[in-house]
């Protein structure tokens, strides 16, 4: 049984070649091998959204993907969202609106919100609810999150 495979991928704009253990989830690979610990584990079964990352631009639950499936893909984690020290609009809006408390769900929440704005630059409340309902926030910052996402929409 082969234990490891070599995969090629892009992470936060950088090309990488790495060995990955078969059976390791993408979430564990990101945290333990890429040492990008902004991506969080909350349930391991795709119910909480704390592990959401962008794979080829789409939000996915990294706990339900194997590390080997990253081969040939483009991965963005929360660490890759700010560019040259400049925060993304969504990140700024989350600060302005106090759209987080403990901060544990925040990386996944922000990435899911970023992906929503990429496909729907001016989302309605319903769009936001649909896009973020797979991201649990036990602190209950949902109202502030909704406001932050709306505020970071493109101005009409």
């Amino acid at each position, binding site marked *: 049984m082969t234990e490891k*495979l070599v995969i090629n991928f892009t992470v936060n704009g950088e090309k990488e070649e790495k060995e990955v253990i078969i*059976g390791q989830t993408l979430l564990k690979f990101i945290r333990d091998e890429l040492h990008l610990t902004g991506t969080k584990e909350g349930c391991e*079964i*795709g119910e909480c959204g704390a592990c959401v990352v962008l794979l080829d631009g789409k939000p*996915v*639950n990294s706990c339900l993907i194997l590390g080997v*499936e990253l081969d040939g893909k483009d991965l963005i984690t929360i660490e890759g969202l700010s560019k040259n020290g400049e925060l993304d609009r969504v990140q700024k809006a989350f600060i302005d609106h106090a759209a987080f408390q403990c901060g544990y769900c925040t990386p996944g929440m922000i990435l899911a919100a970023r992906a929503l704005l990429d496909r729907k630059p001016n989302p309605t409340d319903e769009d936001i609810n*649909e896009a973020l*309902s*797979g991201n649990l926030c036990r602190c209950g910052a949902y109202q502030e999150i909704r406001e932050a996402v709306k505020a970071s929409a493109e101005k009409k």
Partner: protein
Amino acid sequence: MLSYDYVKCNDLRLACQELEEGEQVYLLAGGTDLIVGMRGGKFSAKTLVDIKDVPELKVLEEDDRGITVGAAVTLNEAVVFAPIRDNVPILAEGCHSVGSYSIRNRATMAGNICNASPAADTAAPLYCLDALVNIKSSEGSRSMPIKDFFAGPGKTALNKGELVQSILIPRPYPEGKGVYLKASRTGSVDLATVGVAVQRWGEEVKIAIGAVAATPVRAFSVEKAINEKGEKNYADAARLVHDDISPITDLRGSREYRYHMVEVLVRRGLEQTLGV
């Protein structure tokens, strides 16, 4: 962490070969049920065959026969596919009811039916549309109506060595409205307590229901009353649904509540599709 072999397969023939020759081979497309199932000990895999990039399985197209949804097409891809949205919106609703947006970026319709949960949200709409499951193996191909595909909770009619290549929503498409009405505990991301699909076909209806028996079921008693006997009182018709279902009590709802909710949702489905 679990140990198994991983084979990335870009060739349908080779995928079938792996399935036929290997022991405890599982197919990985979206993985959203598979990885949860492996973690929970429901599946014990020796080999995973990753089929998500097999070209034949990526097919999402409409032709003379109908709409073909390849096994590796994600639910989000299906939801926004114009022929589905325009011709069979009930299926788009079903797809949209599965999990969260980020789950639907991975999860597939084929995976949803292969997991064979009686509560699968795409199943009831597919039953109403008389969908066909296209099955492939090294021996060849065969098709089977969706109703024959579900064999019991977690069980399908697939034989060893067979995989689902695609799902066909055949022409002619239904004339008239279809709705998928789902009852759940939170009304947000949740499994169906019951799921009711009602599809108008001209002057007739087809009704299918999830989470009320070992497999999704058609509500033939109700259909017969409407289609053959011309029953206009939808409440009376909906009451007949009790003969078609045999729900159980579980964490999501009691048997009694399920009986009740199916009746309510069937009636509402009839009202919404046939008009009050």
